[in-house]
C-alpha cells in the first residue's frame, strides 16, 4: 500500500523492499536523502559549477566504498593530475596513495589535448573502454568515477562519434556492473555543458554554492532518481575535515517515537507547575524573555539537573562566555564547575557571526555525534536571527530539532525578545515545532520590578495556566506558588 510520500521517510522502507538495489556512499546524510545511496550498477550524474564540490563528492564516494564497503574503485581524471587530486583531498583526511598501494583504488589520469591529435578518418573510443576495463579488472573495482568526461569534447572534434561513444560507454558500465559517478560542469540552460543528463537517466544530483551575507552556503539537490523516492529539497552540505556532510532536514520525518519519561527542569516548583516531573525526554523547550529575565539561569538549572542524573549536556553559548556563565550560576547557588571538570557539561562557545548558519548546524551535529549528550542547550537561538533571512533560520532550527529528537536528545533553547514586544520574535517563527514554551517577563509593580513566568504551551503536560512570580535568590530560581502568591 502506498502512503503519502514524505521525503526521506518512505524511501527508507522502499529500499528494504528491494525495489532498486543501492550502493551506500557512506557520505554523512547523503544516504539518508537518497534512501540508501546511489543506484547500484548504474551511472549517477553529479553536476554543478566550478568549485561546487563535485570532485570531492566523487572522491569520497570511492574512498568510503573502498574503506567501508569493501568495494574497490577507479578514479578516472580527465582534468586534474593524480598528484593534484591526491593533494586536494588530503585536506579531508583521505590518503589516496595509501589506497592505491593497498590495491583498493586506481587513479588513471586521461590527458586530452586537441593540439596533439589529428583526425584522419573513422575512429571510436575503444582505447578508452579497454583502458577502463583494465583498470576495473586490476583491482576488482565495483565503483568508478569519471571526472569529468566532458573534457573529451575538448579533445575530439567529431561530436557525433563522441556522443555515440558516450552512450555506449554508459551502457557498458552497466554491463560491467560498476556503480558510476559521472561529473559534469554546469552549462547554460542545461545541467551540463554537453548535455550529459541525456545519457544518464537514473540519478542526477546538482551541487551549488552561493554567497549570501558574505557566507558561503553549499547545497545539494537530487534532480532525478528513477525508481526511487528521494528528498526534493535543497540540502545544505559542508566540506569539512572528515569529508562531506549533507544535512537532511530530517532523517526520520515525524516518525520518532515519543518518550513518556520526564526529566526535571532543575527547579522543583517549575516541575510541579509543568504537571509534575518536568519536561518530556526528547522534547523541545523554548524559554523566551527580554534581556535580564533569567533565561540563561533557567538553562543553568536544567543542565545542573542533567548532571545530577549523570547525563551529559552540551551547552552552545552564543551570548556569554562559559566562564562568566559558570561563575554567575555559582553566585546563585547552582554549581556547575564540577560538571565541567568531569566532562559531563561541555560548552561550545562561539560568536554567531563567525560562521554561516549551516556551519553552526553542522558543528552542533558533529559535537553531538562526538559527545553524545542527552540534553543540548542553545543560548540563545535568537542570536542566529541576525545572520540570515528568518525563513532560513527557522529551517535550520527545525532541522536541529528533528535531528536531536531522532537521537532522543532534549533540546532547551532560549530566545531573546526585545522589550515591549508583545509577540515573541523567535516564538512566532518556531513555536509550532516547540513542545514546551516558557515565557519570562519583567513587570513593574508598586515601583518594584518583578519577574514572572508563564507556561505558554506544554504539549501533553497538565501544566499550570497561572502566571507565576519568581525571584532569583542565592539558592537559584524560586517560584512563588499560586497559593502563596494569592496570599500576598
Amino acid at each position, binding site marked *: 500500500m502506498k502512503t503519502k510520500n514524505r521525503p526521506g521517510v518512505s524511501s527508507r522502507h522502499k529500499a528494504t523492499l528491494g525495489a532498486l538495489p543501492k550502493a551506500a556512499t557512506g557520505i554523512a546524510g547523503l544516504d539518508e536523502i537518497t534512501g540508501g545511496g546511489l543506484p547500484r550498477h548504474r551511472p549517477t550524474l553529479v553536476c554543478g559549477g566550478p568549485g561546487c564540490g563535485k570532485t570531492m563528492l566523487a572522491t569520497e564516494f570511492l574512498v568510503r566504498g573502498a574503506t567501508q564497503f569493501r568495494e574497490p574503485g577507479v578514479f578516472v581524471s580527465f582534468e586534474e593530475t593524480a598528484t593534484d587530486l591526491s593533494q586536494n583531498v588530503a585536506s579531508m583526511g583521505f590518503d589516496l596513495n595509501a589506497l592505491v598501494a593497498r590495491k583498493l583504488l586506481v587513479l588513471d589520469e586521461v590527458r586530452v589535448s586537441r593540439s596533439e591529435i*589529428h583526425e584522419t578518418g573513422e575512429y571510436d573510443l575503444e582505447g*578508452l573502454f579497454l583502458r577502463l576495463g583494465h583498470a576495473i579488472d586490476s583491482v576488482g573495482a565495483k565503483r568508478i568515477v569519471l571526472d569529468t568526461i566532458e573534457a573529451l569534447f575538448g579533445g575530439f572534434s567529431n561530436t557525433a562519434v563522441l556522443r555515440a561513444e558516450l552512450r555506449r560507454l554508459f551502457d557498458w558500465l552497466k554491463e560491467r556492473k560498476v556503480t558510476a559517478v559521472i561529473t559534469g560542469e554546469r552549462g547554460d540552460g542545461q545541467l551540463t555543458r554537453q548535455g550529459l543528463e541525456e545519457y544518464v537517466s537514473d540519478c542526477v544530483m546538482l551541487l551549488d554554492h552561493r554567497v549570501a551575507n558574505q557566507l558561503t552556503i553549499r547545497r545539494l539537490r537530487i534532480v532525478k532518481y528513477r525508481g526511487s523516492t528521494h528528498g526534493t529539497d535543497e540540502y545544505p552540505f559542508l566540506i569539512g575535515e572528515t569529508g562531506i556532510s549533507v544535512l537532511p532536514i530530517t532523517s526520520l520525518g515525524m516518525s520518532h517515537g515519543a518518550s513518556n519519561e520526564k526529566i526535571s527542569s532543575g527547579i522543583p516548583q517549575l516541575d510541579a507547575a509543568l504537571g509534575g516531573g518536568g519536561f518530556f525526554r526528547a522534547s523541545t523547550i523554548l524559554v523566551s524573555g527580554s534581556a535580564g529575565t533569567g533565561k540563561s539561569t533557567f538553562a543553568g538549572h536544567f543542565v545542573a539537573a542533567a548532571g545530577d542524573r549523570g547525563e551529559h549536556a552540551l551547552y552552545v553559548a552564543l551570548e556569554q562566555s562559559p566562564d562568566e556563565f559558570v561563575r554567575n550560576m555559582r553566585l546563585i547557588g547552582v554549581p556547575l564547575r564540577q560538571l565541567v571538570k568531569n566532562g559531563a557539561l561541555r560548552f561550545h562557545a562561539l560568536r554567531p557571526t563567525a560562521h554561516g548558519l549551516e556551519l553552526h548546524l553542522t558543528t552542533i551535529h558533529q559535537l553531538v555525534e562526538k559527545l553524545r549528550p542527552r540534553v543540548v542547550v542553545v543560548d540563545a537561538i535568537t542570536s542566529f536571527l541576525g545572520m540570515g533571512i528568518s525563513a532560513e533560520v527557522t529551517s535550520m532550527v527545525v532541522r536541529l530539532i528533528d535531528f536531536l529528537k531522532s537521537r532522543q536528545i532534549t533540546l532547551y533553547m532560549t530566545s531573546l525578545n526585545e522589550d515591549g514586544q508583545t509577540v515573541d520574535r523567535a516564538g512566532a517563527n518556531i513555536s509550532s515545532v516547540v513542545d514546551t514554551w516558557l515565557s519570562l517577563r519583567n513587570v513593574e509593580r508598586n515601583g518594584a520590578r518583578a519577574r514572572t513566568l508563564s507556561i505558554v504551551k506544554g504539549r501533553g503536560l497538565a501544566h499550570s495556566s497561572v502566571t507565576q512570580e519568581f525571584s532569583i535568590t542565592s539558592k537559584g530560581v524560586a517560584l512563588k506558588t499560586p497559593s502563596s502568591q494569592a496570599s500576598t
Partner: protein
Amino acid sequence: MKKASGKSRERSKPIEKYDLCLYVAGNTQRSATALANLKRICAEHLDGQYRIKVVDLVKNPGLARSDQILAIPTLVRRLPSPIRKIIGDLSDTERVLVGLDFRHRA
C-alpha cells in the same frame, strides 16, 4: 650507433628515420583499413626509412594507459620527436601527411 650505420648501408638496410606505432583493438575491419592505408602512405612517401609496429590493445590493455590512447585506431609517430598522434583509419591521406609532418621531407 652512427658508426654502425655504415654497416647497415653495406647490407642495404634503410635507416629507420620514422618510428611509427599503430594502436588497434582486435582484428576489426577498421584496424585492417588503417594498417593498409599506413603501409601505402609510407611506401609512397617515406622511401623505406620507417618502421611500423602494431600494438593490439585487446592483448595489451595496460598500454592504453601508459601510452595515453583513447581512440582506435591511433597512430603515434615516436620518432622523429616530438611525438605526434593522429587518430582515425588514415583514409584521409592529406591529413595523415600533415599530421605526421611527412610533407617537408617530400
